[in-house]
């Protein structure tokens, strides 16, 4: 087991290195310079500033310098927020995004799984149709439409919750709900499909034949087996949500990292683009590792196969 994890960690470092390299060169294809007043400055004036930030060097030299700094854990300083360290900016902005993403995932998974279970248990009943309908709706309507409606009705019309801004826990409720819609839909659909499949399999039929009641079968035997495909999807989705979403953050004026990332790309703020990409990549790889380990916990057959 330990050997397996160490092996995976080594792969992780290699993957990160490849991602960093690819991103670095792709980034250099972005048009223009990071200068914010490039529309006003003459070529010579621009050159003086670019020189200061080492952007006049040949790209391979820049790449080498960046990788050397990266290896020492230095992500550099931002161009758009002069002199502010990339690490500081990411730390400031990741908090709200992680909080919202986490809350949305918890709510989304619980509600989604319940809906899926209900659908599976009352297959082809009215409950099934209702929850399937809701799931399709949740998956197909863009989250900003929900967000806009929630903001207007709950925030402005009824005044139950704050319209937007980021000043306390009650400010997280509406954005959390808006973000949770998608995981709810995904979780419900997967849960339903998997549960239906599992419930039709031989060992469930055997369990039922032995006299275990329906609820017992569902929770003890069905749920566990249906979880495997679910966490495969939900893991990466969680990373996606926790690293911020431009639209929801803008609508609720949340100081998160999603908006920051998009802006950095528009402004050619190379160090921020690199820093954020690496962070997201790391989280993805990490969560995939966690999921692989979880498979073993949930399903002993996978543990055995890997133990060879």
């Amino acid at each position, binding site marked *: 087991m330990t050997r397996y994890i160490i092996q995976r960690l080594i792969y992780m470092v290699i993957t990160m290195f490849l991602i960093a390299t690819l991103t670095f060169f792709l980034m250099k294809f972005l*048009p223009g310079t990071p200068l914010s007043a490039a529309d006003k400055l003459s070529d010579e004036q621009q050159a003086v500033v670019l020189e200061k930030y080492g952007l006049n060097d040949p790209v391979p030299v820049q790449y080498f310098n960046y990788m050397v700094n990266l290896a020492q854990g230095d992500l550099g300083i931002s161009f758009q*927020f002069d002199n502010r360290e990339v690490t500081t900016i990411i730390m400031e*902005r990741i908090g709200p995004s992680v909080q919202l993403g986490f809350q949305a995932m918890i709510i989304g998974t619980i509600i989604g799984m319940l809906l899926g279970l209900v659908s599976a248990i009352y297959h082809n009943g009215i409950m099934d149709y209702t929850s399937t309908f809701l799931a399709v709706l949740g998956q197909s309507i863009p989250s900003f439409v929900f967000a806009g409606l929630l903001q207007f009705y709950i925030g*402005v019309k009824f005044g139950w919750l704050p319209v937007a801004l980021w000043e306390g826990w009650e400010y997280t409720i509406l954005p959390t709900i808006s973000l949770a819609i998608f995981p709810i839909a995904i979780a419900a659909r997967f849960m339903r499909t998997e549960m239906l499949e599992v419930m039709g399999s031989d060992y469930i039929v055997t369990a039922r034949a032995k006299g275990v009641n329906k609820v017992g079968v569902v929770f003890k035997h069905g749920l566990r087996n249906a979880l495997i495909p679910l966490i495969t999807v939900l893991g990466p989705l969680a990373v996606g949500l926790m690293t911020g979403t431009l639209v929801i953050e803008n609508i609720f004026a949340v100081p998160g990292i999603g908006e920051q990332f998009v802006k950095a790309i528009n402004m050619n703020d190379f160090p921020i683009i690199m820093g954020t990409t690496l962070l997201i990549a790391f989280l993805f790889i990490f969560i995939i590792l966690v999921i692989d380990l979880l498979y073993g916990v949930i399903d002993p057959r996978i543990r055995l196969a890997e133990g060879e």
Partner: protein
Amino acid sequence: MKKTNWLLLVLALVLSMFLAACSGGSDDTSNSTDDADSEETTETEDTSGEEGEASGEQVLNITDSAEIPTMDASLATDAVAFQWLGSTTDGLYRLGENAQPEPGIAKDHEVSEDGLTWTFNLREDAVWSNGDPVTANDFVYAWQRAVNPDTGSEYGPYMMGGVIKNAQAVVDGDVPVEELGVTADGDYTLVVELEKPVPYFESLTTFGTFLPLNQAFVEEHGDQYALEADTLLSNGPFVLTEWNHGEGWTLEKNQDYWDAENVQLETINVKVVKETSTAVNLYDTGEIDRTGLSAEFVDQYRTSDEFKVEEEPVLFYLKMNQENEVLGNVNARKAIQMVIDRQSMVDVILNNGSIPSVGHVPQNFTKHPETEEDFRELNGDLIETNVEQAKELWATAKEELGMDTVELGYLGGDSEVAMNMDAYIKDQLEQLEGLTVNVQSVPFKERLQRDENMEYDIQNSGWGPDYIDPNTFLNMFVTDGGNNKTGYSSEEYDGLIEKANTELAQEPVERFETFLEAEKILIQDDAVLAPLYQRAVAQLWKPYVKGVITQPMGPDYTYKYAYIEGK
């Protein structure tokens, strides 16, 4: 909680009526108490002038569209940074009412006969928020820092190069930074030597890049200077007391400000809100006191008393690349100028109070030094929309070029509004027979790069002023000017701009008239640009916010004299 807010609002409104009636002043919200009011108004106007009475909590709640990129005056380049630098720091002068410079750290100044040496007398009662006095050396240090290549400033070289003696040489590394033409004569006299007479230098000194810096403080904090609320200093009306990056910031009145008695606001709370609909919702629930409106909201609020349109001196126009065979023909360019219906464009597509542009100097920007007439009014409409004449000019151009059909690329922005507008303009241009316009919508940086390399035929472009003088718009199009990039080159035009900035630099009237003439050549005779519109922003302001001054350059708003009345 929301219910109480509502009650408070209603209470506040009722109260404000009484207060308005009591204090008189020049507000128009209290039209229900006509009789008693009008009498008092006339009385109070004589005694207190326009100044209203501040009442209630002096807190202003507003939003800004982005996080402050930097609070370091040498590095600032954008509107958000200049706004909050301007609110916390006084330069030599600051822009007051009607964009007139008023004393800041400088009490007054003398200009030498040749216009090359400006001597500023500084007030001795100005202090930084750490207690240090504001001295002439703070300006010397700040300006040297701004042009020092090690600082990496973008606006330092841009604003000071060619203006302050040796600035360009320092930027190029030819002379040491100490050679910059700015020296302290004692603690309270600042002597500035210029490269050439600069008639608008006084308005330049209000600009963010020219703000003073406390050398000891800046050097003590090094790389960390101005990154957080506690690593920056203020000498202006407000102090930045809290700065939550990305979320918002708080300014409090600076009790040690030399002019503190004229500052009434106690607190300004600023939140970062990017989405217009969100800001409108926050405004409607009373969380904020001002919101911008995008086109889709304008119709909904147009009739509200709180609706205001603020005109900005920012121009948008089509640049035409004269290296293109067709666009090198002046008749073709004139046809393009004439065929576009600007009125419908601003009414339907922008719908925010923007006005059709008819020259290359905005209206309400500069006035004739003697007659006080507006530049735009004096030069009038240099172009008009006339489709018939445009078609004739186009036919002539095609004949001259020996072409039947013409295909032109069109470079535009990638925002929704920009794409709508470009589609409209394409449609207008294609009224010219045989013309096909291929619109390409690209991100801002991409457009800049293509502009730089002149890889475009027609380009939708814009320009905002850096100082209050026609020169900031007109000197763009001198031969090989850094922002020309149209291939336009006219000896006559170059001569006029050159003359205005050298021999006429000290003759305000003739200089102004030279600019009038130059604009006619640029737009009317040579048709270098096809003017589109002058930008305005539509906003909602709560009626209890008074005394905010809108500025044409630098900080968008001056909050120094703002106050809350009868909230």
